[in-house]
């Protein structure tokens, strides 16, 4: 929070910043609305450069938070607006994508003005709009945690796009993804997407998913560029990702003791190259095929490593029974130091027509479980506007309740790219 010159502060204090009720000198609280009028004033910060040693909570001894946070702040979450909205600082790379609302031009929420405004000295809390943000990422007034980089992320490359969101019920985003484009040794363009879902009951699930996505995509690209067949490349990449997660357990703070589970996550990845696409997975994150021609059937491409899937495949329960059971989502395969044996599954497909491969975590498919249900919510222009499709699908999950983190990657098929750099999320 930028400090206000004394004159500005006292001039502002004549009326309540919250309800504009006139105030007496020395008032600490507004007599009408009860607002704490000794708190730093939010709105005036935008047009005043940060001068002076700050009149905010520096007396609290917490420091007035030099703004050291290296990344830009995500916009305040607003489920209804999530699709179609792009995080500032991350403009879509494709001209096909919908133009993001210009934050400066279409301000409806005063908090956004503060975020977009020229207040480089500090941030204002997105929850109360009053307090500054301390070095630990909490409001100095109401204590609310501020949005973090991973709460909402979007990436679009030519030929592949992905969106990840914290959802509405979890306090952090434990999903991670990576999308990248490359070409095979023979010049065939290839795009990849890797989506990982951290296991909440484990320790540091967010680190697990981030490590798996980064290592998995890197290994996959590397193998493809060296001419490995996609299925082999994917198998090896999943093993490398699993190893990357397993070594996290070794870094663990010994003080945590043996009472917690080693970091763990699921992983699903897809490669589209030439006339074939390949999917590979461990755990219960999924890939679906949704053709452009909706009269042809869509398909789920992966088999969950989950209790419910096992019950169904063993013929012990019907699908409805199995998924109604509270154990349905217990996963039987994952990446992590305590995974019993890591068994990457891969499969390749050569569809007749054009369409998209949707790669997602259970945060999405809980709201559109079957291939037909998912196809019903995939926009008709998904293949030409993959980012929009991913945003729409995240919106479906949030509208459904957003009970889990949700991550969706969309790969148009056939792949239509030239070589581009890797962009792990």
């Amino acid at each position, binding site marked *: 929070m930028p400090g206000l010159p004394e004159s500005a502060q006292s001039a502002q204090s004549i009326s309540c910043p919250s309800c504009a009720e006139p105030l007496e000198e020395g008032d600490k609280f507004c007599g009408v609305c009860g607002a704490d009028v000794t708190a730093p004033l939010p709105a005036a910060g935008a047009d005043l450069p940060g001068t002076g040693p700050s009149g905010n909570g520096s007396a609290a001894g917490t420091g007035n938070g030099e703004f050291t946070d290296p990344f830009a702040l995500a916009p305040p979450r607003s489920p209804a607006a999530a699709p179609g909205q792009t995080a500032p600082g991350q403009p879509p790379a494709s001209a096909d994508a919908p133009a993001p609302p210009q934050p400066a031009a279409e301000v409806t929420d005063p908090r956004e003005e503060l975020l977009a405004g020229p207040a480089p000295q500090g941030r204002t809390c997105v929850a109360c709009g009053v307090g500054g943000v301390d070095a630990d990422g*909490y409001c100095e007034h*109401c*204590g*609310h945690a501020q949005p973090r980089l991973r709460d909402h992320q979007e990436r679009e490359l030519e030929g592949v796009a992905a969106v990840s969101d914290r959802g*509405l019920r979890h*306090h952090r985003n434990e999903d991670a993804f990576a999308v990248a484009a490359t070409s095979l040794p023979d010049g065939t363009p290839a795009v990849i997407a890797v989506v990982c879902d951290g296991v909440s009951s484990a320790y540091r699930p967010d680190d697990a998913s981030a490590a798996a996505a980064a290592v998995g995509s890197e290994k996959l690209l590397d193998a493809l560029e060296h001419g490995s067949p996609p299925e082999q490349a994917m198998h090896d990449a999943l093993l490398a990702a699993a190893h990357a997660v397993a070594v996290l357990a070794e870094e663990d703070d010994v003080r945590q003791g043996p009472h917690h589970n080693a970091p763990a996550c699921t992983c699903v990845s897809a490669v589209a190259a030439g006339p074939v696409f390949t999917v590979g997975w461990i755990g219960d994150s999924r890939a679906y095929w949704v053709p452009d021609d909706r009269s042809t059937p869509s398909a789920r491409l992966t088999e969950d490593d989950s209790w419910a899937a096992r019950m169904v495949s063993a013929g012990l329960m019907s699908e409805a029974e199995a998924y109604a059971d509270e154990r349905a989502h217990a996963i039987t395969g994952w990446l992590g130091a305590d995974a019993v044996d890591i068994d990457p599954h891969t499969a390749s497909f050569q569809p007749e027509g054009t369409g998209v491969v949707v790669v997602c975590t259970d945060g999405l498919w809980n709201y559109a479980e079957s291939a037909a249900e998912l196809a019903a919510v995939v926009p008709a222009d998904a293949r030409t506007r993959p980012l929009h499709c991913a945003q729409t699908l995240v919106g479906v999950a949030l509208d459904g309740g957003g009970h889990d983190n949700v991550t969706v990657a969309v790969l148009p098929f056939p792949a239509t790219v030239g070589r581009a750099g890797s962009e792990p999320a």
Partner: protein
Amino acid sequence: MANFSKSNVPQFSVDIYQNEYLPEGGREVNAIVTVTSTGGGTSGGHPLAAPGYATDGAPGGAVVIMVDCSGSMDYPPTKMRNARDATAAAIDTIRDGVAFAVVGGTHQAREVYPANGGLAVADAQTRGQAKQALRKLTAGGGTAIGTWLRLADRLLATADVPIRHGILLTDGRNEHEKPEDLRATLEACAGRFTCDARGVGTDWEVKELTGIASAMLGSVDIVADPAGLKADFQAMMETAMGKEVADVGLRLWTPQGSEIKFVKQVAPTVEDLTARRTEAGPRAGDYPTGSWGDESRDYHVCVQVPNAGVGQEMLAARLSLVLPQPDGTSQVLSQGLVRAVWTDDMAASTRINPQVAHYTGQAELASVIQEGLEARKSGDIDGATAKLGRAVQLASASGNDDTAKLLAKVVDVVDAPSGTVRLKARVADADEMTLETRSTKTVRVKK
């Protein structure tokens, strides 16, 4: 054991133990804060500048020993002799360079050594002179502890040192002074120096002495047998000599709309600090912790935060150790964060942090002992049996063996795990007073 040659101020670390997960609608956040100070050549990157702390390595401390010289100290006569011997042993433990004085206390306070309105600087000669002066101590007169503390305060104020400490020995009730006078004295002296209190024999009032030690941020104990005084005084003085930094405050920031339910020290003893807050900026307040040597203490903080939706995260409290600076600001030595995260995962929100559970039990142990002894005194046998039975159960479950042993001198334990006890028909005064005095002693979580 304190290292007397050490001149560096300690490095502080703060560890927070809590279950940060709250169910939907949950508002109460509990955390155990472990504060550890370790000396040795480093201050953790913080250039510490304790006011008045001599940079040439000379110790920056002053100590006044207050010895009860009231008439009762002559019954039996060994009491006065033991008090003299114990004081002499304590004087021998004062390290060179520390300013010190001895005060004799009756219904008024009298300077025994150096008796010049100030303090002597410890060396072989002054220590010898002080011990000579002790020989002139005789018993006679009443007891007005407030006057002793005021004299100690005046004497300590003559030394420009950061660490000021008193040691108070009494054998009787504060009979020659009104309770409100003592209270006013404690209010005036609190924060100016710290003071340990010792009761010798069994004719003193436990609540009176624990109140003094608590206000003065010092320890309290019983020395039922005067023969034990010497070792106790020596240990107390060694602890005092090990103190390296004074006036450390525990600063608690809590968010707007929250309410602090309590702030307690829970180890090594239970001490409720809730009412001792002084405001320190917006939504922040300081709680006194006194002076620190190489040691570790635990605090239990309970904050009620405003409700927030599932998936939200809030900073429920920020705890810092602060050291006041001469220019009026305060230096943050170390800090820790207490978080609140709302979740619909019942397994996460119903988990009870072992540290929080342990110290909740230890605090209950202290209060049921005090209530049980109170009930016993007032003849409420059933109430006393129930309370002390619960105390036996808690002491046994938490591994507080010292307290369990003290309890066993007051009640016959039939079955400790269930808390089944019978009150003993005859209990020695010393045993009952020892239990009461030490009821606030806690043990740490079993590893």
